[in-house]
């Protein structure tokens, strides 16, 4: 389906000295990727030829009361308006992979991996078949029953046990690396998928950590459900919990740690989220300050006593270069300790607020490294999205474990737990001059800068900011991952900006002003600073997302992928093609051709290294060492960062429930931007 990127592809953020990075750097020509990528665009890849006819299935007399259809090829259709929807959803998410989950009808696929996950959470073969049969409108196809039998027959026969800091597996396999053992046990190899469970209550060897959830930490129903899947049989299962951004993953993570009550290693994607995780631990649990510590390039803390929580980044643990003496000591401790829980934040691609851009990519090799370095009884991955390429699922399955629970976006929105978000994509045609330069071979490294700085895009952005600031009194955040563009936009529009190099004090000051002052309504953020925004009361508003895309450029390609993800999750998507409106042209910037040409000159004369993606210098010890190489990577790395669009968001500052909850029928009340399109 290609929501994500190819496995093992390093990200701009992984500037560890791994060899893979260097290899990727050799791919100077961005276009080399696209040829491949376009191929996986066709999701099902079948024409009418493969149309599946299951009309012969026998309908049960009371089929109207049952919520789903099951096909012989493993596809399952679920009516969301059925009275049994809730039960059916919980069941299906445990046994099948969701394909798409829009409003009225969900689709799922039964796969060997999904059944592996089902068995891991304690479902038995016969239970799976009988529940499925009860929910199905038709008699179950025989093929499906056979498939379930075949896929679940061997599960749980191999167990992996960590004792006294050593892994014990079946004798015969003992000589293998643990990771290889696990992989070889998966359905596509030996077909003896393992169950990883941790009987933490009877673990007398590892010291207990005194921590409880505070009374005010009340998990919501779906958080409770995730936890019950993890601790279903009194032991802790390893696996992944998928919750949308803003749904409160941290409470789930902290709750899990509080139940296990052993040392916990918490891995985050960068220093900012390390701070936040530490904060969340203190917020939700009564953990004593001396039992929790952060390990980043800035703060090298160590907990006192024989058990505790360490919050650090993937890079800090996986870093292969030379460390300071102090770091070396801490990492040695991390390596040697038998961790009760390995908490992995953003265990996969993080599509923040369901949009637009893959940030915090933790590539598989990084996982592998971290997991091979540390030893833990239970691994819990928390993520907003699972990429559903089989290859990826395999990766995750042997690295962390099966998916334990996955919440449905739309249900959470309806329950009022996360924001209702309206997405719109604004198509901005390239100006003639910019497009001519864009097509030139010698500008291949400036492509991104050219389409981000496209004057039409700038004008659309300016128009939207004016519109929301002046006519609606909204607060607006504009994101860009291109630092050059971020600076140009912010300077030109005279708005404050926050990016990697912004000091902590300044950042706090700007954000405070943005939240409270009437004079600061727009702020420009680099995407690496996404957490700044996330820290706010994110559940309280209904948000609008615009993403500005220069048409006929590479951006359109990212846009297609993004749309697919969004619409499969049930979000509707609008395309706006005429911004700014023709009558609003002259008061916006870059109205005159001279201005546009001088902007073009600026882009072209800027050094290649200036116009690429922003690098976030947050994680490792040896930034200086890395810098030189990292800089060189920037240009070509842009291909891997997902969307390049400027992103723009506004949200109401007033009480909740204003925009978007239900679209007004009356065209007169329609959002003005959209109204224009209905004339």
């Amino acid at each position, binding site marked *: 389906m290609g929501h994500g990127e190819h496995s093992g592809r390093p990200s701009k953020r992984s500037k560890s000295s791994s060899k893979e990075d260097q290899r990727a750097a050799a791919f100077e020509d961005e276009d080399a990727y696209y040829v491949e990528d376009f191929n996986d665009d066709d999701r*099902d890849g*079948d*024409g*009418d030829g*493969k*149309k*599946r*006819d*299951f*009309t*012969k*299935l*026998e*309908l049960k007399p009371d*089929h109207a009361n049952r919520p789903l*259809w099951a*096909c012989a090829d493993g*596809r399952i*259709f679920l009516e969301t*308006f059925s009275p049994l929807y809730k039960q059916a959803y919980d069941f299906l998410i445990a046994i099948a992979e969701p394909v*798409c989950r*829009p*409003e*009225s*009808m969900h*689709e799922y696929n039964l796969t060997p991996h999904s059944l592996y996950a089902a068995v891991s959470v304690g479902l038995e073969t016969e239970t799976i078949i009988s529940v499925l049969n009860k929910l199905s*409108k*038709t008699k179950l196809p025989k093929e499906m029953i056979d498939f379930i039998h075949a896929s679940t027959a061997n599960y749980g026969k191999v167990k992996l046990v960590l004792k006294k800091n050593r892994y014990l597996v079946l004798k015969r396999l003992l000589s293998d690396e643990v990771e290889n053992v696990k992989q070889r046990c998966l359905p596509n190899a030996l077909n003896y998928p393992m169950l990883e469970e941790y009987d933490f209550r009877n673990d007398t060897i590892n010291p207990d950590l005194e921590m409880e959830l505070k009374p005010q930490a009340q998990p919501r129903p779906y958080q409770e459900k995730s936890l019950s899947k993890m601790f279903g049989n009194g032991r802790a299962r390893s696996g992944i919990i998928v919750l949308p951004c803003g749904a409160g993953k941290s409470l789930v993570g902290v709750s899990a740690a509080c139940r296990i009550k052993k040392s916990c290693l918490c891995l985050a994607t960068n220093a900012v989220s390390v701070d936040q995780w530490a904060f969340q631990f203190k917020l939700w649990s009564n953990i004593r300050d001396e039992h929790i510590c952060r390990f980043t390039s800035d703060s090298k803390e160590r907990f006192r006593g024989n058990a505790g929580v360490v919050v650090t980044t993937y890079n800090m643990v996986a870093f292969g270069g030379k460390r300071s003496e102090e770091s070396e000591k801490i990492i040695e401790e991390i390596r040697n300790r038998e961790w009760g829980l390995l908490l992995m934040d953003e265990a996969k691609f993080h599509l923040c607020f369901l949009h637009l851009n893959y940030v915090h990519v933790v590539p598989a090799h990084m996982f592998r490294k971290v997991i091979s370095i540390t030893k833990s009884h239970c691994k819990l991955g928390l993520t907003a999205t699972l990429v559903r390429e089989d290859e990826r699922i395999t990766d995750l399955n042997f690295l962390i474990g099966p998916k334990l629970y996955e919440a449905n976006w739309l249900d959470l929105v309806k329950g009022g737990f996360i924001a209702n978000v309206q997405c719109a994509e604004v198509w901005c045609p390239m100006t003639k001059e910019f497009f001519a330069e864009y097509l030139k071979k010698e500008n291949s490294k400036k492509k991104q800068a050219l389409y981000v700085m496209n004057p039409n895009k700038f004008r659309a952005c300016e128009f939207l900011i004016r519109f929301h600031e002046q006519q609606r009194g909204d607060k607006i955040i504009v994101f860009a991952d291109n630092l050059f563009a971020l600076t140009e936009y912010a300077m030109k529009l005279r708005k404050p900006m926050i990016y990697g190099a912004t000091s902590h004090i300044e950042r706090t000051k700007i954000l405070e002003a943005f939240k409270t002052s009437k004079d600061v309504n727009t702020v420009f953020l680099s995407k690496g600073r996404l957490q700044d925004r996330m820290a706010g009361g994110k559940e309280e508003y209904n948000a609008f997302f615009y993403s500005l895309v220069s048409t006929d450029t590479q951006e*359109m390609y990212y846009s297609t992928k993004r749309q*697919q993800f969004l*619409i*499969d999750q*049930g*979000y*509707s*998507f*609008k*395309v706006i093609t005429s911004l700014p409106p023709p009558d609003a042209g002259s008061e916006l910037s870059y109205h005159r051709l001279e201005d546009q040409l001088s902007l073009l000159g600026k882009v072209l004369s800027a050094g290649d290294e200036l116009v690429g993606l922003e690098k976030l210098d947050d994680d490792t010890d040896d930034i200086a060492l890395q810098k030189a190489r990292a800089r060189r990577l920037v240009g070509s790395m842009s291909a891997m960062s997902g969307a390049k669009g400027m992103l723009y968001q506004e949200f109401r500052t007033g009480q909740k429930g204003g925009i978007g909850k*239900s*679209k007004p*029928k009356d065209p007169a009340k329609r959002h003005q931007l959209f109204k224009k*399109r209905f004339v």
Partner: protein
Amino acid sequence: MPQVRIIAKNFMDMVASLPAIKLDKLYHNPFICEAILRSMPPLAKKYVLQMLYIDVPVTASLLNEWVLPDGASKHRVAVDRLIQLRVFTELVDRKKETTYVLNQMFKMNLREHIINGGEPPRKPMAANITVRLPSLEDLDNYAAQQWECFLLHLINSAEAEVTTKSISPSMMKVFQRGLLSQRDKEGPRLTESGFQFLLMDTNAQLWYIIREYISNSEDRGVDSADLISFLLELSFHVTGEAYNVDTLDDVQRTTVKDLADLGLIKLQQGRKDSWFIPTKLATNLSISLSDASSRKQGYVVVETNFRLYAYSTSKLHCEILRLFARIEYQLPNLIVGSITKENLYQAFQNGITADQASIKYIVSFLQQNAHPRVAERVPSVPENVTDQVPHHLYSND
């Protein structure tokens, strides 16, 4: 290819467009007069009734005084319609003033009707002769099934199993004219009009076919006025009642057989007698086409991801959806597909231009047939789909 636009006008429009002689002949039938009166705009009805017993021409200026100034436009519409239907004859008298007289035949028939009351054109047969009449529900199902079968046959679908019995191949050709292109090499393909035709609601489709049936009648040696009067007469019959075939003349008997193929009529054979039972399709013929009450329950759910789920067992529905969607799964009571660029292209490669009209037809088809679950939500078809169907077509990648 000549552009054939399907304009789903109603029966009365067709009547109004008949040549004068035919029209005058029609008014010999009292039922036609009543039907025509019913179909008129309210103001026109009032004029007719007011002038029913005035035997001298009424001047236009007098007529003008009957309405308040703000009714002027309605007045004009009413008078135009009456002239069009030849219910009014416009005369210029010696003082060069415009006057109107009511059509003599029309007037006599209406007066007769008012004095003696209307009689049904035919009496239903006694229940003891016709023992096993279908229930109204069965009859509706029968009508729908016949119509579907006819349409599948019409578009030459491979799914058409039962061939229509009475309608001759040459007649089918007539119906197909304009809807299918008759290119020899590739076999017949749907034209733009055919595409739009399939997406129309049943009443509009029915009307199109009936119109073709009427305009082709002279070639079959049937007087179109006779045919129209019979069809209008049919609408005065009661749905579900049985009428003896013996009361029909030869032309009408043939017509009834054709209409049975279309689902307007069900034919049954008793021990001695045979009878015909008009279905809702027949009795609704003269009713305004936009009448929502005759609309069937919707069955289509369109999602924001362009997935389409149709709660239907109908092969015709499947064929229709195939016009713009890729059908991926067929289940006992569900058809699953997605609206894809490729399928739209395919549709539009068949000589169908990707113009706004065709797109509107797709969108309004989806809206009109929205499943009750989504019909209550506004909009019933997600906005991003209605917005992006055009984008799907025009983006040139």
